[in-house]
């Protein structure tokens, strides 16, 4: 820049500086919140999963605090870090079985949710704009009553059918609770579709059925993916529904974690299971994005 323009160039620089400063100020409170209540607890959980349970629950300290007690028959409180929680997990197949079953239940729930949500979302998105808000309100209306009340209501409904305390009951309730989380992202996606695309498909020789499978469905995949994430992940951690409506063999990962923290008070073990769950979810999410990237690449190759 020439010398004459330097005085002018100061203004925009100052301006952008102020702008980025404003951004900082605005994002500061939520960032602090996230650090304090998400990043820090997660870190505590990572460390906790390598620790030893305290004598009366909770976590044992990392270092001996008081000078060793002479109370010999009680033994000394163990301190420090250990891999024992993880070795316990991998040495018994029951944990792998619970994980496998949880993934299967969550997968089945997600699949049923997708099947049931699709027609609803499609129907709402094809309604006149003025009616859509009312229909969406109906979708989220169940949230107006308490979650536990709604789950207990299923006990009354399912009782006469001899379905209570079975896996079927658990899946029915899981689908019921999570259906809106599938409908809403799917609707958001379907609503954005250009209606001209449907006209174009029909015009170019596609039947209504072909139009759905060649145009509407492929375009709605992102909606299905985000809806699936919103259903699959919470179901993996769900413990209330299996506990209330499930039988003895309906224990899921969520119940395992809840038991470890509240019943056996083995915090390190609970942290470890929680860590494994997080890793599993991350692995599944990674696999999904890899698969969708690959399918897009394959699509680009073919005519």
């Amino acid at each position, binding site marked *: 820049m020439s010398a004459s323009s330097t005085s002018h160039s100061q203004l925009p620089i100052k301006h952008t500086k102020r702008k980025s400063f404003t951004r900082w100020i605005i994002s500061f409170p939520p960032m602090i919140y996230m650090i304090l209540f998400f990043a820090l607890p997660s870190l505590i959980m990572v460390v906790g999963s390598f620790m030893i349970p305290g004598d009366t629950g909770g976590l044992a300290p990392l270092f001996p605090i008081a000078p060793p007690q002479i109370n010999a028959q009680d033994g000394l409180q163990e301190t420090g870090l250990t891999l024992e929680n993880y070795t316990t997990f991998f040495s018994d197949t029951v944990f792998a079985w619970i994980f496998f079953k949880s993934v299967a239940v969550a997968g089945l729930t997600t699949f049923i949710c997708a099947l049931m949500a699709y027609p609803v979302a499609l129907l709402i998105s094809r309604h006149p704009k003025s009616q859509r808000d009312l229909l969406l309100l109906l979708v989220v209306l169940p949230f107006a009553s308490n979650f536990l009340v709604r789950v207990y209501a299923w006990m009354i409904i399912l009782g006469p059918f001899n379905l209570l305390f079975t896996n079927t009951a658990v899946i029915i309730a899981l689908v019921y609770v999570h259906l809106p989380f599938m409908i809403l992202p799917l609707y958001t996606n379907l609503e954005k579709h250009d209606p*001209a695309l449907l006209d*174009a498909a029909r*015009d*170019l*020789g596609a039947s209504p059925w072909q139009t759905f499978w*060649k145009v509407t469905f492929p*375009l709605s995949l992102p909606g299905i993916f985000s809806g699936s994430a919103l259903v699959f992940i919470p179901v993996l951690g769900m413990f209330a529904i299996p506990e209330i409506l499930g039988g003895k063999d309906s224990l899921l990962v969520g119940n395992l974690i809840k038991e470890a923290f509240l019943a056996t008070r083995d915090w390190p073990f609970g942290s470890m299971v929680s860590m494994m769950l997080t890793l599993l979810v991350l692995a599944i999410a990674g696999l999904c994005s890899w698969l969708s990237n690959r399918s897009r690449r394959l699509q680009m190759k073919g*005519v």
Partner: protein
Amino acid sequence: MTLPLLKLQNITRRFGDAIAVNNITLEVHTGEFFTLLGPSGCGKTTLLRMIAGFDQPDEGQILLDGQNIVGLPPEKRPFHTVFQSYALFPHLTVAENVAFPLKMAKREQAFIQQRVKETLELVHLEDKGHRFPNELSGGQCQRVALARSLINQPRLLLLDEPTSALDAKLREKLLVELSSLQRTTGITFIFITHAQDEALALSHRIAVMNSGHVEQLDEPSKIYSYPKNRFVANFIGNCNLLEGTAEGFNTTHLQINIPQLGEVRAPRHEKKHEGKGWLALRPEHIAIAAPEADLNYTNTFHGKVCDFLYVGDVTTYIVELDSGQRIEALLANSGLGSIRFFDIGDHVQVAWHADAGYFLPDNADQSSQASYSTSASTPLTASSRT
């Protein structure tokens, strides 16, 4: 006479109380470039949607080779549409988009690949087959949409304002391309537009539509030179309209009395012309000159320049006559250099030949909302009327 490819017979379409298309009857012949021209809301898009099969008429018949196709779904009609918004499938590549109609028709893979290659070459996009629509410019998208509609060789190609989303330069390029595509493929085109210059430049025949009915159906030059009523005169090109009364005639000319202005002579096109009406005069038929010049025309009047529009090749002068009427006159800037002939406030005389103009009797005038048009005529119009 041979059977028309497409015949619309007494087509009417209502939406509630509103009549979108009102008793339209017209024929489109094989190999024709047919244009439906009209302002927005005139019913041309509704008519197109009924031809394509997206909508069904309340009354009337749509005949394809003499067979009524009302009620036939769009996928069963041998017509393809180029949509205003392109409507390319965003999840498919250019090649997949273009292949779509052939895939739906269940043609074999080798044939599809061959046709896709040929068709992409036809629209000069042979190197873009692997791209996705969002990686293309607006003009390229439009050509993909064209290729996709042409690949299965439809009996009829419907174009719904295909140029409305393009800038002026691209628009002109696409129009030239459309014209040559129509000639090379021999496919019948029905073109929908609100732009009179596009209609004049491309069409074999134009149906000028207004509030649900056809005002005039004819060749472009006929429509331009002999508009049937005030609406057509105003909508197609620029037009001066002077209200007056035809008071007498001889074998070739009419004597028209225009209030305040006086007597003017205009050509006589029909046997009988009497009574009130409007004299339509194209700006390019009106000469403008300095007050002292000897123009030697039958109809000569004096006035003052009150505005002008310089568009490069021509300048439109708006002259207020001493009698109060305003007249638009077109002057070609054929002189070398940047000469401007007149300025605002200059006294001038305007004149036109007794053979110029066209008298529109009031009884031929169905639309009363026609008013003074000030839209500038574009170079495209200018070149197409030669």
